[in-house]
């Protein structure tokens, strides 16, 4: 006879299998390389927009750049080669995000370092508070003055939001 714990574990397993199964359903075609690469670059006309989204009337850069990108893709070049070619021609600011090499890596690592520091700080604060709580002297529950009772009532009211 299955125990309560094993039946609960089975239910969790079935749910997990269902979720993974649904998650893996189907796969669409590769998205357009032109669109993908075009969204990794900026228009260099100082508009501050992604290359594929620059729509300035009379922008002298974006159309040319898009044509160059399309030609490079048609020419069978790899993504890295195309990006390197654009950096050489338009400078490092043509890339919409820092690369994953050299000092640029700092930009990518920073958020996760901050996250680790933040979560570490959170855990440290929680541990410290709990430790202090455990060592704090317990107050006897009886013999409270009416002021103390009023204060506790007020605290209870605040904490229960009633």
């Amino acid at each position, binding site marked *: 006879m299955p125990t309560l714990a094993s039946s609960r574990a089975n239910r969790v397993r079935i749910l997990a299998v269902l979720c993974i199964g649904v998650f893996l*359903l189907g796969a669409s075609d590769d998205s357009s390389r032109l669109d993908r690469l075009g969204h990794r670059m900026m228009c260099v006309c100082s508009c*501050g927009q992604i290359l594929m989204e620059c729509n300035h009337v009379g922008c002298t850069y974006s159309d040319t750049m898009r044509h160059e990108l399309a030609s490079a893709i048609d020419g069978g070049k790899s993504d890295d080669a195309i990006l390197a070619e654009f950096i050489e021609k338009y400078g490092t600011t043509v890339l919409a*995000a*820092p690369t994953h090499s050299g000092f640029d890596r700092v930009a990518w690592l920073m958020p996760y370092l901050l996250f680790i520091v933040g979560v570490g700080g959170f855990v440290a604060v929680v541990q410290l508070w709990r430790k202090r709580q455990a060592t704090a002297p317990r107050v006897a529950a009886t013999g409270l003055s009416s002021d103390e009772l009023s204060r506790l009532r007020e605290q209870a009211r605040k*904490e229960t939001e009633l």
Partner: protein
Amino acid sequence: MSQIGSFLLLLALALSAYSFLFGAIALFRRDTLFILIGETARRAGIASFVAVLLAGGILVNAAFSNDFSIAYIFQHSNRDLPGPYKFATLWSGQEGSLLFWALLLSGYGFVLRIRHKTDERLFAHASVVIAAVQVFFFLLLNFAARPFSLTQGQVPLDGAGLNPLLQYPEMVIHPPMLYLGYVGFTVPFAFALGALIMKYPGDKWIHITRRWTMITWGFLSCGIALGAHWAYYVLGWGGYWGWDPVEIASLLPWLTGTAFLHSVMMQEKRGMLKTWNMWLIFITFGLCIFGTFLTRSGVVSSVHAFAQSSIGGWFVAFLTIIAATCIFFYLFNHSYLRTEHRLESLVSRESSFLFNNVLFLLICLVALSGTLFPILSEWIQGHKVTVGPPYFNSVTVPFALLLLLLTAVGPLLAWRKTSLESLKRNFLWSTVGSLCIGIILIATPASWGPPFGLRPRDDLGYFYSLLAAMLAALVILTVFAEFLRGGRVIARHTGNNLLTSILQLGHRNTRRYGGYVVHIGVALIFIGVLGTPMNRSAEKEMGYGDTVQIGPYTLTSRSYTQEETPNYTGDKAIIDVTKNGQFVTTLYPESRMFTATQQPQHVPSVHSLLRGDLYVVFEGKNPETGRPIIKAHLNPLVPWLWLGVLVMLLGTVLALFPNAAPIRSVATSRVRVPVHASAGAGD
């Protein structure tokens, strides 16, 4: 008139300097003479508002009367500019917008100073802090960015005109909203610093500033949302948020301000996080000033920034003074900020608030470090890099989703400790509902259109969209469950129907339930954003009768017209939209050329449904063929974003209402109460 304007600004500087110096002196002594000096300082602060209000009025009047002898009016207005935009001239340039900053700051100071009876000592301290900030802005206006400078040489017959991108109705209200938010954080900052300086006992300053902070936060939220709406409907690139440094500058204080609004509850309810709250509001104010510096100094390039100027140094000096002042008083007086209670359980409202604060601050730091990284890169590598939307999207979205999870979970955790049983009771059905929504979104065919048929394996963006949809559903379901649960309890006690009981519940604790409504708004905003990876666009040169297909829609160019006004000439396309052969609507995208500035502007035409927007832009004409270029975007779910903002603002307004008296049920039978039990146990 320019001389009168300049004189009024000088007077405002003198009055606020008096208010600051004599107000500060009066704080040290409590005898009659010093009380009188303090009163004169308060009145000087009030008078400074009148002076700057008149100066602002003179500048606006100069715009309406086409007084191009004032250089600022010449640069930002012209004769044919429509009336509302002439009014907007006040904040459309560097000098005018600083005057507007000072005007709003003095306005807040005015309200604070006339309400001084609430707590004279605390308000006197806050008034001095506000006066100090006023002095800084009046120094700027008198010596570094003078709005009443005269035009050199002969007075021109017409002005250079207002930037066309600013000639849009929202631009008349977006900057004031944003500035009301930015400037408004000076008030809680002033109270916090005042409370720290005087070692103000208790948390009354928190209660006093709660409404100020919420109103300010509401204005800032509204300002940011209006900015996004303006970007969407005016810039014509089909998006609403581009992670531009100026956009980020407005987001940073919003993030820390939101963290403050949450963590302040821990101080009110449990006497915890006093130091944290104090610093959070200091940082929020510092970020408001930093944002103003970022927008105006030219240290980062942005299409929204004001022209590069020399006022950056002033802001750096001011930020240094703010930091030094806060650190100084904190080091001297921090002992009074001792926490009254400790955390009892990891599964509690306190720890969820703490983690929520960590996440808000983390997103703020990530956005800030990303904004400043190009400068750092230039120092270290010798060349600039671009930190654009792909970076910000990939590093902030996971944290934002974690925050959304906390939005669902946090409010339902109890103070002090939450049992597993209570967790299960509160979340079981909401979690099941959220999972069901996820399964539906994946299992449905893609032909149903976004957001259905999500394939999270194909694209990280789709995966995030799926998570966002499930978490948004979790937030909405938990909030509805909470309303239902509370409503049922009240219905049982009062005998009213459920809807009335839910309304009573909301009225009984407006802050809590208003906050829940804000959370629903946030969830709706996430729904609006999650469609982004599924955006589609198509571009085509379209002559008469040409068609372009985008998603289920077929766009047919019917004709083109021209419009000529004194302010601009416009080319307008008339595009018929059909879906499966059925007529849907006609769209009129326009391309304008402004006469005074000779700058072009797109005016997109949008067909909006809850499923998404069909957003059509007249991109201009191909210079070689002369044929019009039409670009169409299909942006799924975007209207949910605007709906979410409205719900969020509604929640903020609800939270500002005073609570109704607690509902008491009437006992229907007499109860014998022993005399000894009732004595001393009064309510």
